[in-house]
């Protein structure tokens, strides 16, 4: 029985409880100085002048970085995940409230904050645009005057921005004949759904430490993508990637906010300018203007036959990308692919747009691109069923994709589980039973379901994993997958142990170090567990191949005679010769069984051969791609699948929604670690219910009015209903493919709740969050009341803030 207290899982838990995780925030170096950003109070303005002279005279200030520092051509002043459109500090203009205009480095964070307030910037305000649809109108203010032939865009970025517009990408699916499909339908239902900008609210904010030593740069950062950061920072300084080393320990949550490049280029430039290590830590308020989820509007139209067969579906999606492109082009693509839902639809037309606006940057967010469209198509599918007079579950079952069916991208689907997942959710919320009675006379009860399909990864992707076995018996799993809190180190240890047939506690998982751990796309898209499991199997095979070669040489037998059972290397048949050892090195010969008998443990063979260490390498790559004009091709290596069910009570006098029951069923394939897998599923449910009922970044023009955790509200433990259940649907095959669970369940939850509210009230509410005021307006048939900004000046936290650093934790 392995000692579970020696596992990576236990070790990580112990470090957390003891406060010993080396978070990037805790990095301390001799001569460390602290940076603070100067941020724009305007959504869109030309910069006339930046005067840092007053700030520079403040005692304790080391330097102030302005656009003047970027103008000599020695560095590339832009970075960005797809389009390099984001300046390290603003150059010609600012594009959103909170855009970085300058940065101050000082001996303490307090002095840096004080000095940041002394940097004087003269602006000429420009007309701004905040809405994605308005931004596409002719004559709309341009967030970037020129995109193509101005910014670097890698040829394989897979996006088509258009100069002279705010369009980052237009994704299309054309399948069948949409016009004919709609024309031959007995009923056509057309609706518009929308969902707001959100903030990820990771417990740990963005934090980066950068340090130059001669020409070598070391970065400690809270990033989900260490190798990507390394490349982008190397590009900024125009140095080979080997000169940049990125170290990542454990993150205090990411949820997509720490994907791609965030504050690392700025921290690195500041460290270069000061010649000292620089720490850049964002406040909670700054988090709200650094990364957000895409606000989206989804126009959806479905044609059905009277018997309930879907004939055609047409969807138009506008993703509000904010001021910089980041990954929005690909997000439009993933959202477009996911917009039809898990249904057989012969005639499909999808247009998904990613659009620049003068809002803070929108970046990947747990449930990437799909939660926005799933909110639309699952509410809409429910509505179509109701208007047909069909039970929404029966209607779905009739149209759900099954084994071997063709998806809207033209690819044939296998390993399909939508119907049983939906059934499981329906059964778990008592769908077949009579509705429970309301707890109070003013309340009404309703039930709803949602079922979703989600891609894994938006682009072709590769993960490399190495297994190093040392002669002293140590085994290392080397991977650049980041421990975000999801338990990746547990998974790596367990899967490498499984692939090598050794006990889990023998495998150690070092933290990510781009100098030592192999290249990896990044920890995102619910892909890490699957990719690492696949790569671990290849790496273990490579280890065995090397061991066979080694044993053949040492024992003077053909490689084919060497057998590896579990972690024992043997040469059955007695042909093995023990190698002669040089005098004085007999100690090398291990005691115990010889290779001819029970076999040698792997490291004993290394000892015998005088080899200190071997490293097996395994890669796993997915190849996907779609035709840009028709959206036909292969969109995902495999498909994530989930269904949710909810029972709600709604107070008709107040509009408040009370969640009575929530169930989430997710297809898991093979479960690697049950505890972590369940937590991932429960985390998805928590995010889903929070987004359905509470969360929204409120804006006054371009200004975030609730950039703290009191005015921006996320679910707490008490918000889970007493009746909360989850299912991890496992394959009976013990070697089934592993499915990532980080995001899968999330998109199913808001529509399940929305459909339950619809069931209770008889009224459809097309916008989340389903806050009481919005629900009450819908009950009364009046227009939803826009959420006005607070009257209190203190509720608005404008940038820049003097001495600001709080996070409004109450």
């Amino acid at each position, binding site marked *: 029985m392995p000692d579970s207290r020696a596992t990576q899982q236990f070790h990580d838990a112990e470090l957390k409880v003891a406060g010993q995780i080396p978070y990037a925030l805790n990095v301390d170096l001799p001569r460390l100085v602290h940076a603070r950003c100067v941020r724009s109070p305007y959504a869109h303005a030309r910069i006339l002048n930046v005067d840092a002279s007053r700030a520079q005279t403040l005692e304790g200030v080391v330097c102030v970085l302005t656009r003047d520092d970027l103008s000599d051509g020695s560095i590339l002043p832009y970075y960005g995940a797809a389009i390099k459109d984001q300046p390290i500090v603003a150059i010609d203009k600012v594009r959103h409230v909170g855009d970085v205009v300058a940065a101050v480095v000082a001996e303490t964070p307090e002095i840096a904050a004080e000095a940041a307030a002394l940097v004087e910037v003269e602006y000429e305000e420009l007309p701004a645009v905040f809405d994605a649809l308005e931004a596409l109108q002719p004559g709309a203010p341009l967030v970037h005057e020129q995109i193509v032939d101005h910014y670097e865009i890698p040829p394989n970025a897979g996006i088509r921005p258009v100069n002279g517009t705010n369009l980052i990408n237009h994704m299309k699916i054309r399948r069948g004949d949409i016009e004919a499909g709609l024309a031959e339908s007995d009923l056509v239902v057309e609706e518009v759904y929308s969902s707001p900008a959100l903030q990820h609210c990771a417990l740990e904010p963005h934090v980066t430490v950068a340090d130059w030593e001669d020409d070598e740069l070391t970065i400690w950062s809270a990033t989900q993508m260490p190798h990507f950061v390394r490349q982008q920072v190397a590009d900024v300084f125009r140095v080979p990637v080997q000169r940049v080393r990125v170290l990542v320990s454990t993150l205090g949550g990411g949820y997509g906010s720490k994907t791609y490049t965030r504050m690392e280029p700025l921290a690195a430039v500041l460290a270069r300018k000061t010649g000292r290590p620089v720490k850049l830590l964002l406040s909670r308020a700054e988090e709200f203007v650094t990364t957000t989820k895409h606000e989206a509007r989804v126009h959806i139209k479905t044609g059905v036959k009277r018997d309930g067969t879907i004939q055609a579906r047409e969807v138009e999606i506008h993703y509000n990308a904010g001021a910089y492109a980041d990954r929005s082009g690909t997000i439009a693509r993933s959202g477009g692919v996911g917009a039809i839902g898990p249904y057989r639809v012969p005639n499909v037309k999808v247009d998904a747009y990613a659009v620049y606006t003068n809002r803070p940057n929108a970046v990947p967010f747990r449930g990437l691109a799909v939660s926005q469209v799933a909110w639309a198509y699952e509410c809409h599918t429910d509505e179509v069923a109701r208007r047909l007079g069909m039970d929404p579950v029966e209607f779905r079952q009739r149209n759900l994709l099954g084994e071997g069916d063709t998806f809207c991208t033209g690819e044939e689907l296998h390993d399909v589980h939508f119907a049983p997942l939906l059934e499981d959710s329906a059964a778990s919320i008592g769908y077949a039973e009579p509705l429970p009675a309301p707890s109070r006379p003013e309340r009404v009860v309703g039930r709803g379901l949602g079922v979703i399909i989600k891609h894994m990864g938006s682009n072709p992707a590769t993960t490399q994993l190495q297994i190093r076995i040392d002669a002293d018996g140590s085994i290392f799993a080397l991977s650049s997958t980041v421990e975000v809190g999801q338990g990746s180190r547990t998974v790596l240890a367990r899967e490498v142990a499984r692939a090598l047939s050794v006990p889990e506690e023998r495998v150690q998982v070092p933290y990510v170090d781009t100098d030592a751990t192999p290249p990896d796309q990044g920890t995102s898209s619910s892909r890490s567990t699957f990719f690492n499991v696949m790569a671990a199997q290849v790496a273990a095979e490579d280890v065995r191949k090397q061991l066979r070669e080694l044993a053949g040489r040492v024992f003077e037998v053909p490689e084919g005679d060497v057998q590896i059972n579990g972690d024992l290397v043997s040469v059955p048949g007695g042909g093995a010769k023990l190698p002669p050892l040089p005098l004085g090195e007999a100690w090398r010969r291990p005691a115990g069984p010889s290779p001819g008998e029970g076999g040698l443990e792997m490291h004993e063979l290394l000892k015998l051969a005088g080899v200190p260490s071997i490293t097996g390498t395994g890669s796993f790559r997915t190849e996907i791609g779609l035709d840009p004009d028709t959206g036909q091709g292969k969109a995902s290596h495999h498909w994530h699948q989930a269904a949710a069910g909810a029972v709600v009570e709604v107070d008709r006098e107040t509009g408040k929604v009370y969640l009575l029951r929530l169930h989430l069923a997710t297809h898991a394939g093979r479960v690697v670690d049950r505890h972590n897998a369940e937590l991932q599923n429960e985390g998805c449910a928590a995010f889903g219910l929070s987004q359905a*009922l509470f969360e929204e970044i409120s804006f006054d023009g371009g200004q975030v009015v609730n950039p703290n955790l009191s005015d921006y509200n996320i679910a707490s433990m008490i918000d889970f209903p007493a009746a909360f259940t989850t299912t991890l649907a496992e394959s009976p095959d013990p070697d089934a493919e592993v499915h990532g669970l980080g995001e899968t369940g999330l998109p199913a939850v808001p529509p399940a709740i929305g459909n339950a509210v619809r069931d209770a009230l008889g009224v459809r509410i097309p916008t989340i969050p389903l806050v009481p005021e919005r629900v009450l307006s819908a009950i009364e048939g009046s227009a939803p009341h826009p959420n006005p900004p607070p009257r209190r000046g203190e509720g608005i936290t404008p940038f820049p803030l003097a001495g600001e650093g709080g996070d409004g934790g109450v």
Partner: protein
Amino acid sequence: MRVVMSLEIVKPASMGEAIEALGRYGGEARPIAGGTALVLMLRQGLVAPPAVVRLDGVPGISSIAVDDGLIRIGAMATLRQVGESAEVRARLPILAGACGLVGNVRVRNAATLAGCLCEADYASDPPAVLAALDARARLERSGGTRELPVLDLITGFYETALMPGELVTEILVPVPPVDAHQVYLKFSTRSSEDRPCVGVSAVLQLDQDHRIADLRVAVGAATERPLRLLEVEQATLGEPAAGDLFAAIGEGLAEAADTINDVRGSAAYRKRMIAVFVRRALEQAARGESGAWRS
């Protein structure tokens, strides 16, 4: 140039020392109890006092005592203490319950009831409860002591009647008659840990004929300061306790309220919710229920 402000921290060992310290600094020093409000304000640069005077080292000011029809709550008594106190739970279930609904247990363990009044944040539960209970605050400063009704202590949007250097040393809450029923309804529009959108406190005593012998209703969180309509309360005395009367009282308060617009609800919505929750609180009290509920 050197402008970074340094904050002096004073830790007095007695109430006398605390009052004396607050008298220095031109009355600009701020007392700090649990710090759940003041620390955030300091961090956001909303206040910049030259010094903070810590009250946590002052002995004997976190007690809760029953004294001749009054409950006396010391300046350092936390919301958790008030919420868990057997004396408060038995005599003022509305106050114990409301304190137990504030934020989360980590906040309640640090925040004090007196500090909550001094912050005068409208989006808060306890002030309206204390207002409905006719609670008074005892105030001390160098050279003077006075008592003010809680309703008069909070004068506006984050504004109090506290004079420079003046400290709330004690809160005095009269215990309602045993046959009076006390109900607090906290209505929040988002998560369970959210601040209230509207909070309604009601104290209702009925005579043998089910007529109103005492009625006190305070609305919190919806307006800049807790709202009571004393003349309306007076006018109900002797009236039969009936649903339409309660609805009318709710409508009256809604109409009188100059409600706030914020992310928890618009001014118009808050007015409507005042009417709903005043009616519901009085109905519950008339049914003989006592305590605090979240909805």
